[in-house]
């Protein structure tokens, strides 16, 4: 309860200032870590791309040691780099790098997100939207299903005993194995496009919602329940006035996990279909046609999309819990 969730009148400026300070305060350690990761990434690029850079240099008539590709195969990327330090800069700017360097990925991202028209088949905004829309549909289905199952589990002993084991079992099935079957089967009965991917997203997201919601609906303590009994409240009133509001913090925690799982599910659903659109399809295209930059840009776009989705949910969570008067944890 360090930060007041209810802004007292006139606290606006103080709160904004505090929020700003919190953001800048939080940014410093994050930036440090990001800088560290980028540095490590650049270091890793050298041995990964060294052989290709050496061959390139050889073709351009620059002396390389050893001077045949076969002899160079005997060496690791690291020792090759140590013998040819002059060629190292070339490893950062390969056309078809084994591991692209950060600035290449950044340039590809900038190019495909900001410079391409969003209707273009090369725009990552277009592909991102294809993926995100299926993610949101699947997330909505999964959340709805998860909440319904949770209510059933809490109110029916039979459902408690019968559903939970199946819900757990469902999550032990490797999604990479199931996804193609679902896509193919639904495709066979004529269902294509958004919906099959959303099904897989829903399949992955309902589980955290069930688990969190059950815990939330069961969170009221004995006294809070007894209180309603002394009022002779109905079960519906008990649900609406106690269990449901008490479950809100638990539900939001689950939703944040669920939406990330939905995104993963959608991307997995885009891999096996030969789909031409979506971030998953871009990753596959990049891999299969030797365009690692395309795959890496799609990967980062997916990460950005996940961050935006989870961030949006966190904002909704804050606003809702504040409105409810529950101080955000």
């Amino acid at each position, binding site marked *: 309860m360090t930060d007041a969730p209810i802004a007292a009148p006139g606290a606006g400026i103080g709160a904004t200032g505090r929020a700003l300070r919190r953001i800048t305060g939080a940014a410093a350690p994050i930036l440090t870590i990001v800088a560290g990761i980028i540095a490590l990434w650049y270091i890793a690029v050298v041995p990964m791309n060294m052989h290709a850079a050496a061959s390139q240099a050889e073709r351009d008539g620059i002396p390389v040691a050893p001077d045949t590709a076969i002899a160079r195969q005997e060496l690791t990327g690291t020792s090759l780099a140590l013998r040819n330090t002059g060629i190292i800069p070339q490893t950062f700017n390969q056309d078809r790098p084994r591991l692209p360097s950060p600035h290449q990925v950044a340039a590809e991202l900038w190019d495909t997100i900001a410079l391409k028209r969003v209707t273009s088949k090369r725009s990552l905004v277009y592909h991102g939207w294809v993926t995100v829309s299926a993610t949101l549909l699947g997330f909505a289905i999964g959340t709805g299903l998860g909440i319904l199952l949770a209510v059933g589990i809490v109110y029916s002993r039979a459902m408690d005993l019968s559903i939970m084991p199946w819900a757990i079992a469902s999550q032990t099935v490797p999604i990479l194995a199931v996804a193609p079957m679902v896509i193919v089967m639904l495709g066979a009965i004529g269902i294509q496009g958004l919906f099959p991917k959303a099904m897989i997203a829903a399949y992955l997201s309902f589980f955290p919602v069930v688990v969190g919601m059950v815990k939330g609906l069961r969170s009221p303590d004995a006294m*809070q329940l007894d209180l309603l009994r002394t009022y*002779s*409240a109905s079960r519906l009133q008990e649900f609406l*006035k106690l269990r449901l509001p008490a479950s809100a913090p638990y539900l939001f925690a689950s939703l944040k996990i669920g939406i990330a799982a939905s995104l993963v599910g959608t991307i997995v659903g885009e891999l096996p279909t030969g789909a031409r659109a979506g971030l998953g399809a871009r990753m596959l295209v990049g891999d299969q046609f030797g365009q690692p930059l395309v795959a890496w840009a799609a990967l980062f776009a997916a990460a950005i999309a996940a961050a935006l989705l989870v961030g949006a949910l966190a904002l909704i969570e804050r606003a809702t819990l504040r409105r409810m008067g529950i101080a955000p944890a």
Partner: protein
Amino acid sequence: MPDGIGSQQEVPGQARDAASPVIEARALDLTFETNDGPVHALRDVNLTINAGDFVSFIGPSGCGKTTFLRVMAGLETPTAGEITVNGMTPDEARRARAYGYVFQAAGLYPWRTIARNIQLPLEIMGLSKSERQERTDRVLSLVDLEGFGGKYPWQLSGGMQQRASIARALAFDAEILLMDEPFGALDEIVRDKLNEELLDLWARTDKTIAFVTHSIPEAVFLSTRIVVMSPRPGRITDVIESPLPKERPLDIRDSREFIEIAHRVRDGLRAGHDG
């Protein structure tokens, strides 16, 4: 003291002769089955509480005071014996909304403001918005929390939360009030003030009150009868009729009668401890 003394001593020839029994317990027994074996919480409890009584329960921790109150409220089922509330079973009485219950802890819902916490029972009863508002304002001023209706529970001190929970029970406005150490968390001054207010409310409304406390002065000051209990298994060792008048200023606590009753309660508690 023999068991079941309550059943022999009740209704002496006082002005309450005409009073009708509201709660009647006969040979109540309650054993909790726990993992560590049975816990005998109540044994052979006999007690009659008449309309308009203010009965205090006093006894060492764990002697079954809360359990007895919960039995009256139909929240716990006795293993033997019988109990009626307004001639009905406690369960029926509960469904008829015969009593308000103040728990040992405030138990406010954290997502509701104080006012909306107080309105919770009223919403369940289906009262109109204006009536809810009117009752909320009234009970808030009764417990001295005017102006705090819009605050959330965590913005209030523990004592204020407890007062809010009393206001919630008062808003429910049932004929019987079951109060489990409602003032345990409060400082002496506030406690005195709320004691006076509770007496005042009781005198004005003719409610029947069952009140659990650990404080001998509080029990003597408030009650028309004081029930002394002993632990393991919990039973009634003494029922003391108070000769104090219904009108009780705070300084009655210095009177000879008051001190005599307090002594008797203390002796009863000691006897329970040794036996």
